[in-house]
Structures are given as C-alpha cells and as structure tokens.
C-alpha cells in the first residue's frame, strides 16, 4: 500500500506549478475573464507542447498515456492558478470519445485534441437541470441513413470555442430512462445548431446554451452503440467529477496558503492577526477541510483509475465533501482577510466564485450525499 504520489508525479506537479506561475498569473486570468474566448491560441499551444491536452489518452492517439492520478496532480495545480479556458471541457469531450469512439474516431479526434488542433466539449445537461438520465430530452430521430437532433442543451462549457460537441440525445423512448440514450459527435458548423454564450458569475468558466433545431448528422456521427450511451457517459462523468474535485482541492489549498501568509503579516492591535485564536482556529478548520478533501479525492482518483467496484461511491464521497470544503474555505479566506478580501482587486473572489461554480457542476454536496446513501444501501 502506498497512498502518496511518486517521483514522476511530484515532478509533474513542480513543472505545472512553475509553468502556471509564469503563464497564468492573476493578470492573465483577469484578462481572459474579460474576454469571450477565455484563452489564447498561444496559451493553448503551450498546453499541447507540455503534453497536458492529451495527458490521459493512449500514445497511439497522440496522448501521453498517463493515468488519473497523474491528471489529479495537474488539475490540482490548474485549480491553484484558477486557470481559465476550455481545458476541463475538452477533457470531458475527449474522455467520451476515448470511452466510446471507434478506432478511427479516436485516432482522428484524440490526436487533434492532444495536439491542440481541436476542442470538443460535452453537451449533456438541459434547462431541466437534471444530472440523471431522465433529464435527457433532446431527441435524435433516425432519418435518411443518419439522425436528426432536436432540443436545447444548457450549461454547456466552452461550446463557443469548440470545434465539435458530444451531444447526448434520446434515440428511443423506453420505461427505463437509462435505456435509449445515444451520443453523437456534432461539428459546431452543422446547420440548425446555434451556440449562445451566457454571462457567468465565475467568469473563468464560460457556459453556453446550445440549440439543436433539426440538426442532421450522418450515422458515422454516432459514438459507441445506439441506445447504449448512458453507461459510458456515466463512467466519464464519474471520472471527470474526480478530476474536478482535484481542481477544487488545488484552489482550496491556495486560499489556505494566501490566508496563512496574510495572517502572519497583517497587524491589528499591535500583533499579527494570526496570533489571535479567533483567526488561528479558523485557519486550522480550513486545513482540516482541505486535508480531508484531498484524502477523499486522491482515493477516488486511484479508485476510478483502477476501476475498483467502489469507484462510484468514492467519486460521490469526494464530490460531496470537496463541494462543501472549497466553498467554506474560500468563504473563510475572505472573512480572515477582512475588507481587502471583498475587493475586486484581490484574487480571493476568483476562488470564491470558482468554488461555487464547481460545487454546482455534476451535482452538489446534497446530490452526492443522496447518491452515497443509495450506494451504501440506506
């Protein structure tokens, strides 16, 4: 048993931290927030050159062939830098293709994704805001040897800068919501497909509404088997949830670091505020939240990587805990900084907002606690 990172992973962490400290400063983050795209082509090329866009894809598809524990390290560092841009959304699209694509689809798309030539996002959730299979009401009807897609997707990350979308649609009505769901790879230029960028509270995360108005796709657009899309999608979401948790842990750790440093130098009543127990104890609570969130997240990363039977439970435990932890820690960070923490100028609000948007992504703590309750047979 070894519950720690190996030397290669520690090296990846050091490399990522240095890279992001140079390339993803507060000024860079703020500039990208203010723009629609959320990233620059130069930055994207650099991510590709580091091998991070294809980190978890096999080498035969242009990836680095690493695992989810390695991805955890990278995501933690990206969360620490509150990195904007379509990295996570492209991971979602790529993972679906990896999970369901034919060899030709994987070869084409994962290579392009890894090289930074294409971005693919996931168009799954809808205005009904459900995370379960019953929430998928967009339809795909067989017609003329292909399919016609109709419906509205909401909360689609970075669709405005993607070359293609993985669209989750219902190909067959059946008694069980999980049956009859299919996945389609749809180019954004397809006729009848419109993308609208929505203002977001966390400006480092760009979300879109995607409307599909009788969008015709050929049968070759189908990813995996017709009607059998839910199981692979659920597996991808489980993995992506763990990756998101890692990003949240990185952000929470950064808030704790910022707050600790501030408490050492900010003087009130003649002493550094960190010497007062009212501050010190809150900082200790933050540390406990961060450490426990990491423990559950690291375990979940190993569990999904090894595909152990407990993986779904581990992922939900991690998301439930980390959702609360990041929100609490980033809120406490603002509180301990006092007025300066409430300003636009200070970076804390970037983390506070990221905590909220991450909490609401793939189900919040309440949602995942109910899943835990189901999985432990309550």
């Amino acid at each position: 048993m070894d519950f720690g990172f190996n030397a290669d992973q520690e090296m990846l962490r050091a490399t990522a931290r240095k890279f992001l400290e140079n390339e993803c400063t507060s000024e860079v983050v703020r500039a990208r927030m203010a723009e629609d795209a959320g990233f620059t082509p130069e930055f994207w090329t650099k991510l590709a050159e580091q091998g991070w866009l294809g980190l978890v894809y096999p080498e035969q598809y242009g990836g680095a062939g690493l695992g989810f524990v390695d991805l955890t390290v990278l995501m933690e560092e990206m969360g620490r830098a509150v990195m904007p841009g379509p990295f996570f959304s492209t991971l979602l699209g790529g993972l679906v293709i990896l999970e369901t694509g034919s060899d030709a689809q994987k070869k084409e798309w994962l290579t392009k994704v890894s090289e930074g030539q294409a971005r693919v996002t996931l168009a799954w959730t809808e205005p009904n805001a459900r995370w379960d299979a019953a929430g998928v009401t967009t339809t795909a009807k067989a017609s003329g040897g292909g399919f016609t897609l109709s419906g509205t997707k909401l909360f689609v990350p970075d669709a405005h800068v993607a070359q293609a979308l993985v669209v989750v649609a219902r190909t067959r009505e059946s008694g069980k919501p999980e049956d009859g769901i299919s996945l389609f790879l749809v180019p954004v230029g397809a006729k009848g497909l419109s993308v609208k960028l929505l203002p977001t509270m966390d400006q480092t995360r760009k979300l879109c509404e995607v409307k599909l108005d009788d969008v015709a796709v050929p049968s070759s657009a189908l990813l995996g088997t017709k009607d059998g899309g839910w199981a692979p999608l659920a597996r991808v979401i489980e993995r992506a949830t763990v990756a998101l948790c890692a990003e949240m842990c990185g952000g929470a750790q950064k808030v704790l670091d910022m707050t600790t440093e501030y408490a050492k130098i900010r003087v009130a009543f003649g002493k550094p505020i960190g010497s007062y127990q009212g501050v010190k104890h809150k900082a200790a609570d933050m540390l406990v939240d961060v450490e426990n969130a990491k423990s559950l997240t690291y375990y979940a990363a190993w569990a999904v990587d090894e595909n152990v039977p407990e993986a779904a439970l581990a992922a939900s435990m991690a998301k439930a805990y980390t959702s609360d932890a990041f929100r609490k820690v980033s809120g406490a960070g603002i509180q301990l900084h006092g007025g300066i923490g409430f300003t636009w100028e200070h970076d804390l609000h970037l983390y506070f907002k990221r905590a909220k948007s991450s909490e609401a992504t793939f189900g919040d703590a309440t949602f995942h606690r109910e899943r835990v309750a189901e999985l432990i047979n309550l």
Partner: protein
Amino acid sequence: MDFTLTPEQEALRRRVRTWLTANIPDDWKKFGLSEVPRPEAYEFLRKWQKTLFDAGFIGLTWPKESGGQGLTFVEEMVVHEEMALQKAPPVLNILGVGMAGPTIIAYGSEEQKKRYPAKILSCEEIWCQGYSEPNSGSDLASLQTRAVKDGEYWVINGQKVWTSLAHIADWMMLLARTDPAAPKHKGITYFLLDMKSPGVTVKPLKQITGDAEFNEVFFDNVRVHERQILGGVNNGWAVGLTTLMYERLALGFGLQVRLRITLEALVDMARRMEKHGRAMTKDPVMRQKLATLWIDTEALKYTGARAVTKLLRGELPGPEASAGKMSWVDTHQRLQELAMELQGPYAMLARGADVAVDSGVWQYSFLRSRANSIEGGTTEIQKNIIGERVLGLPKG
C-alpha cells in the same frame, strides 16, 4: 499510489478474518456497543486482549523482543480494518498499547524495554496516564506535582486528575516537576510509577455518565527508584510529547475503526426506528445526515492512510496526522447527536427502561462523547497546534 496489498498482507487479512470469526466470544454482545469499556466488561476485555496477544494480532509494529511482530503500519491497518468489519471488542489496555509501550520502546533502557512492553500487550499490566492536574490541563507544562531526589530515590507529592483506568491500573506514565527553578518545559521528568507503591491513593471521579471511569490520584511521599525514569532527568517534556504523537498516530487507527463500528450500529438502529410510519433511513433529511457521517468517517480513514504512507517512506506525518484527531472528535460527537435525534422521544430513556432503544447504550455514549473534545488535548489546543506548528502562525 497503490491501495493493493502484497500477497503476504492479503494472507494476513484472511488469517485475521478467519481467526476473528472463530474467536470473538458470543457473550460479547451482552455488554452492548460502547466506545469506552464499561466497568462490567473489564474482566471480559482483559481475557479478550490476552487472546489477541496469544494470536499475535496486537502490537504488530512493535519489535519482536518487545512482544510485538516487527511488522509495518500497513499490517497494523489490515488488522484494525478486519476488527472493524467483525465488530471486535475494544482493547482494554489502550493507554498502554497506544502510548506507554511505544514511548518506552522509543526512550527506554534495554532493561526497561525488556521489562514492560510485552506485559502491556498481553494485558497482564494495565497502564494509566498521569499528565493532567487540577490546575494544569491545556497548559500541561505548568504541572506542579513535585519529585524531590533522596539518594537513589525520588519522592513524589502532588495530585493528578481525569486519570482514566487508574482504579485498575498497575502502572502510570507520570510527569512530575524535578527542577522548579528551570523554565517550565525543562524541569519535568517522566517516571514509570508502580500504582501499588505506598502513598498512592486513587479516588474514583463520578462523571456526567454516572460511571466512574476517571479518577483523582494523590501522591503522598511516594518513593520511586531512579531506574524508573524514562528518557533522563528533566527530559520529561520531550518524552511526554512523543507519547502524545504516538497517541495521535496509533490511537488514530483504533479511533477510526471504532468510529466505523459505531457508525454501522447507528445505521442499523436507524433502519429500525420509524418516523411517520417509515424507516428513518428512508427519510431524506436523515439520509443526508447519515451519508455525511459515512463520508467523514471514510475521510478520516484515508487521511490516516496518507499519514501512514509518510511513515513508511521514513518521513514524519505533517498536516494529515494533526487533522485526524480534530476530525474524529467532530465526527464522533455528531454521530452521537444523530443517534439521539433518530430516537425521538425514546432519547429521553436510559438503561434500565425495558423499552429503551438498544438497552440505553446510546444515551451513555452520547454523554461520554462530550469528553472527546477535551481529553487528549482540547479541540482549542489542537487548533493552536495546527495553527502554530503546521501553518506556522505566530504564538498568541
């Protein structure tokens, strides 16, 4: 990162599982489920610990010459996990196993290492901890119990308090002031005190639960030979802190395991309790609360596993170990509060009422859990330690 075990460790797991199935006595259940051994279970638990010792399932990380198995913390975790799964009875001599033994192995003379540890594991000799005093709790280094040198002997006078198990203990880890002129941390010595020495008086202290598991211990000219000093004269603070570090590490496993056992019992009780005609486990609010406890208990396990990994790699555990005790306290107290909430008006009944839920065991453990955030360093002191030693914040 790898959670798989070696074939030898898997074999150990199977061996422990088979052994526990065959050896946990049926009459254990009659003592009810409790975090802390009740007085009526002492004799049973003495025998149980001896059985564990004879089978080699206690003291796994201790050296063989000290009665242990010379294995790593991974094997220790495997055994603890299996005990949790099988709802095994707790270890009675927990202060000896968790604190005295490891400290003696770390600081003891060859003679001391030969004399004490094996009898701790076998439960032949029970240990208690003489740290806290009426005027020295969180500020432990201010302790006033005096030891004055008289030839080869030291003469002890003073008082300890909140001393768990002193009424059945054979030995005490005693901190006493040997140099009142020195700065407070530098004039303390760690003694291994025979509780049968003349001048030692133990008075039971009735607690919130009505039980007297704690005691006051008085020393009236108690003579202790200098060979009973552990780690050198005036070095007691360093030795005592080592004990506390082991307490957090080694007891940490035990605590997590007991927590898991209690949690399973809570879930089992929740299935039997009803609210508006349906099981509590089907109530959406209660499901949230139970799931929260489940997640927090698992977090404790993995935070512990990260600390163990550091130990195995030859590093000292950092934030992981410090976070453990605080999380445990918080989780366990919430668990006990939920146990009461689930019972509705039945929460008001106690042992002796024939309609009390689970014979009133939860009422006892609910009350007992209030001590968790005080004993072994209050939560406030733990937060100071985390703030200052882990986060590097300035002292107040």
